[in-house]
């Protein structure tokens, strides 16, 4: 939040002007002290500037870095001004600051003109008659008003609309368990044990990916009639037992190959 907005929302607890920047504050101090912009008493102005920053800090106003940067510049100038004349050299150390202040003061002048103009011009309303002739069906833009920003915004809007109508496909990660391996495993276990409790077997696996691979493998074995599945009642154990066909090594591979392809 800017200082301005914060100041307004809290209501000014004490009389403290809000400045639009460090140069603004500096101009204010010069005016308040009734000194010449060309001959700024740096020591005194520097102290007042720091005093003002301290007040701002007390009010918990967020002090922008620009104010601090100016504070250190003023301190630097102050130290130079305190040196004896002979050490200072020929150039007035304040020269650059004066130039910046003069340039900024011109901006403030023009801004103040625009401020008055803004108030007056807001009293002027566009007079318009909607003609029966031209009722544009869609909003058209003046080519003159189309800038890089509008172009960028339009592009983002188009791409967002595109993405909304084309949701990305679900990402299928390569399974860490191969269905064909599980088919071999389950098939041989059923052949060896004669009867395999599928749910108990699944519950003993902690990795959901392995559970999925086993279920797919079991279904595929049932389809190939290599195993039969039996369940007496709903929600009870599913038993796998040998089916009526003996599966070749190739058949056990087949499903896995097409699945991963």
């Amino acid at each position, binding site marked *: 939040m800017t200082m301005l907005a914060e100041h307004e929302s809290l209501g000014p607890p004490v009389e403290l002007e809000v400045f639009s920047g460090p140069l603004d504050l500096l101009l204010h101090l010069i005016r308040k002290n009734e000194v010449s912009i060309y001959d700024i008493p740096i020591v005194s102005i520097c102290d007042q500037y720091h005093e003002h920053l301290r007040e701002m800090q007390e009010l918990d106003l967020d002090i922008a870095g620009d104010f601090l940067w100016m504070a250190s510049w003023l301190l630097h100038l102050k130290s130079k001004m305190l040196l004896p004349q002979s050490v200072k050299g020929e150039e007035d150390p304040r020269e650059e600051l004066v130039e910046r202040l003069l340039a900024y003061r011109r901006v403030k002048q023009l801004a103040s003109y625009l401020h008055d103009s803004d108030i007056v011009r807001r009293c002027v309303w566009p007079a318009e008659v909607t003609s029966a002739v031209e009722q544009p069906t869609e909003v058209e833009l003046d080519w003159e008003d*189309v*800038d890089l920003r509008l172009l*960028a915004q339009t592009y983002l809007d188009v791409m967002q609309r595109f993405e909304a*109508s084309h949701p990305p496909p679900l990402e299928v990660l390569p399974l860490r368990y191969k269905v064909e391996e599980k088919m071999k495993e389950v098939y041989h276990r059923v052949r060896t044990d004669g009867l395999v409790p599928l749910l108990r077997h699944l519950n003993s696996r902690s990795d959901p990916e392995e559970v999925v691979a086993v279920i797919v493998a079991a279904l595929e074995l049932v389809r190939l009639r290599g195993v039969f599945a039996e369940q007496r009642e709903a929600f009870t154990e599913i038993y796998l037992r040998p089916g009526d066909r003996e599966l070749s090594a190739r058949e056990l591979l087949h499903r896995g190959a097409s699945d991963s392809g």
Partner: protein
Amino acid sequence: MDRETLTAGVEAILLTAGGPVTVSALVEAIDDSDADPGTIEDVLASVATSWDRPDSGLRLEHVAGGWRCITPAELDGLLRSYHGIVARQRLSQAALEVLAIVAHRQPVTLPEINFIRGTNSASVVRTLLERKLLRLAGRKKVVGKPFLYRTSKEFLVHFGLDRPEDLPDPEEMVKDETSSGVLSE
């Protein structure tokens, strides 16, 4: 309020209303002891008369919802001509979208533009070619060999760019910053 100010006020309201204005809304807005409904009706009648001249481009029309400003029907041809000229300086939303797609993804084909926009953009592309904002840049080496489109020199000039690569990253361009508090009451 004197009669002259009253007349000017009624005219100004009619001309900024953007639709029919009722006598009661006028009475309420003017809120003046001199502005009773009878007087307002009177003023409206005099406005209607003063506009109804051969050298005036304005008419006052009484419609169901109240009083409304219109232009005389005999000037429709002229207005159509003016708005046609202005339209040439304008860009439709569709055209801006195609321009944005080509600018950021060039070179690009019509099927690609259509796919992204989800609608056929052939006529829009043609208009942009005619306006010299797009240019042909060869054919893509895929089935059907569709034309490739790029933005033109004029496009760059309009946006003050030297080369197409100078087009800023759109995300960066539009990125939101902290509220600035430029506006105050």
